[in-house]
């Protein structure tokens, strides 16, 4: 993996809040093709901001995000934090999924659109969820649906923001296997942010510790054993 070409280069990225404070300070990072890169760090460390900058939702004060050949924002799938979505809204799983289909002006989610969405759900062993309301899903099922939605964009890079938050133990275990499967069988490059160090240790090829600036980068075991990180969580990792 260490010799893999990059999918994405983040160069000297600085992002500032409206009041001028730094959300990210001179962050440089290379994401390798086919790897699972986990971002860890405390709340407010800039993990979601980094993702949003990669997606073009946040403009950096300086620095740049450069996609390698065959990678682009259009081929990047994004699963936001579960808390960012109101699951009490009256949408079915199929409606949520078909909204993810790019390049379609009209949206009714029938016919070919439904078939495409169903195929992605089947890929993730979630076909039985298709006609349920999103409010009826467990945390793990909901993340599965969100990932299926991101896959509808045929991504090469998949960004998962806090995928295990609000997910029970069984759901987290399912997510672990799913994320590894997406890398191994679908050849996806995955960036994820998580506070769940167990999940990170199990799935990540490399871990990046972020606290506005990079405070550690390397193989999971190496970074998670770092004394500086232990200070973040005030416990033995």
């Amino acid at each position: 993996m260490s010799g893999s070409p990059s999918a994405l280069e983040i160069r000297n990225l600085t992002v500032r809040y409206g009041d001028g404070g730094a959300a990210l300070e001179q962050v440089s990072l290379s994401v390798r093709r086919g790897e699972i890169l986990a971002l860890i760090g405390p709340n407010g460390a800039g993990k979601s901001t980094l993702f949003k900058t990669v997606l073009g939702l946040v403009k950096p004060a300086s620095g740049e995000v450069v996609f390698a050949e065959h990678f682009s924002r259009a081929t990047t799938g994004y699963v936001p934090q579960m808390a960012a979505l109101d699951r009490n809204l009256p949408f079915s799983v199929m409606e949520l999924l078909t909204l993810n289909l790019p390049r379609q002006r009209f949206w009714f989610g029938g016919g070919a659109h439904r078939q495409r969405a169903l195929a992605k759900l089947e890929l993730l062993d979630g076909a039985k969820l298709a006609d349920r309301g999103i409010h009826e899903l467990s945390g793990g099922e909901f993340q599965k649906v969100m990932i299926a939605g991101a896959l509808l964009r045929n991504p090469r890079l998949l960004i998962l923001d806090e995928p295990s938050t609000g997910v029970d133990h069984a759901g987290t275990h399912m997510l672990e296997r799913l994320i590894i499967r997406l890398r191994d069988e679908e050849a996806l490059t995955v960036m994820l942010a998580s506070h769940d160090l167990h999940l990170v240790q199990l799935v990540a090829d490399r871990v990046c510790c972020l606290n506005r600036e990079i405070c550690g980068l390397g193989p999971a075991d190496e970074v998670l054993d770092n004394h500086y990180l232990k200070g973040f969580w005030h416990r033995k990792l």
Partner: protein
Amino acid sequence: MSDLWQIEFMRNTLVSAAILGPVCAFLGVFVTLRGMAFFSDALAHAAVTGVALGYLLQEISPLTVSPMLFVFAFSAALATLMAWLFEKTKLRPDTIIAFSFTGSVALGYVIISALGKYRLIDAILFGSIYANSTRDIFIQLALAVTVSGVLLWNLKALALGILQPDLARVQGVRLERLNYLFALLLAAMVTICLKMLGALLLSALIVIPPAAARLAVGNFKRLLALAPVVGLLAAVSGVLLSFTLNSPTGPTIVLVNVSVLLVFLPLRLARRGAR
């Protein structure tokens, strides 16, 4: 029923209810899911100022411009201002709506009292649906087609904006522009519906049918289909009932809407109990 149809003002009233009821409910699906129910109420009350400004201009200049144009202009300006404040300030939406709402009503009342046209207040607050002319109905029809067309054209963007705003932006949806467009549609709808229910009750036509439909169905497309049906039935049966009972039309329409909501409530509770 056929006798009622022979009476021109009743015919116009029924046609008007049949046009505005469903389109208000259709628009209302997005209003309620975006948490803008109170926003539509504020725009309706801003009509007091729009009408007052219209009459003020008639007093001080020789121009004769329909007060409804002022209602639309003022509602659109207020809607744009509120949408801008939502975007640019850290104030909570309910706070912005509250001071816009009370400020505009206060301004309108001050102008009306200065002009001495107190009798206007009653018509603005409670509407006068029986005063619909054939010309009014054509304007309502044109607006209904326009509003429905714009909503359908932007259906995916609107749904994405409600459900996953970040994904909407990633897909290239200009959410800020869409928000302004939506606020303008709402302002136009409020202006045209003012005659039907008046400022005090108007938002019921927009909010209650989708709220009732949401109790009965669990997904977005069924909600889009059912809400206009509820809006149509409640508006038309409200007009008929008010004629039969000799009750005020606007409040009767609102009460029929509330009754439908109460009928649908057990459905929701039953579904929740079944889970």
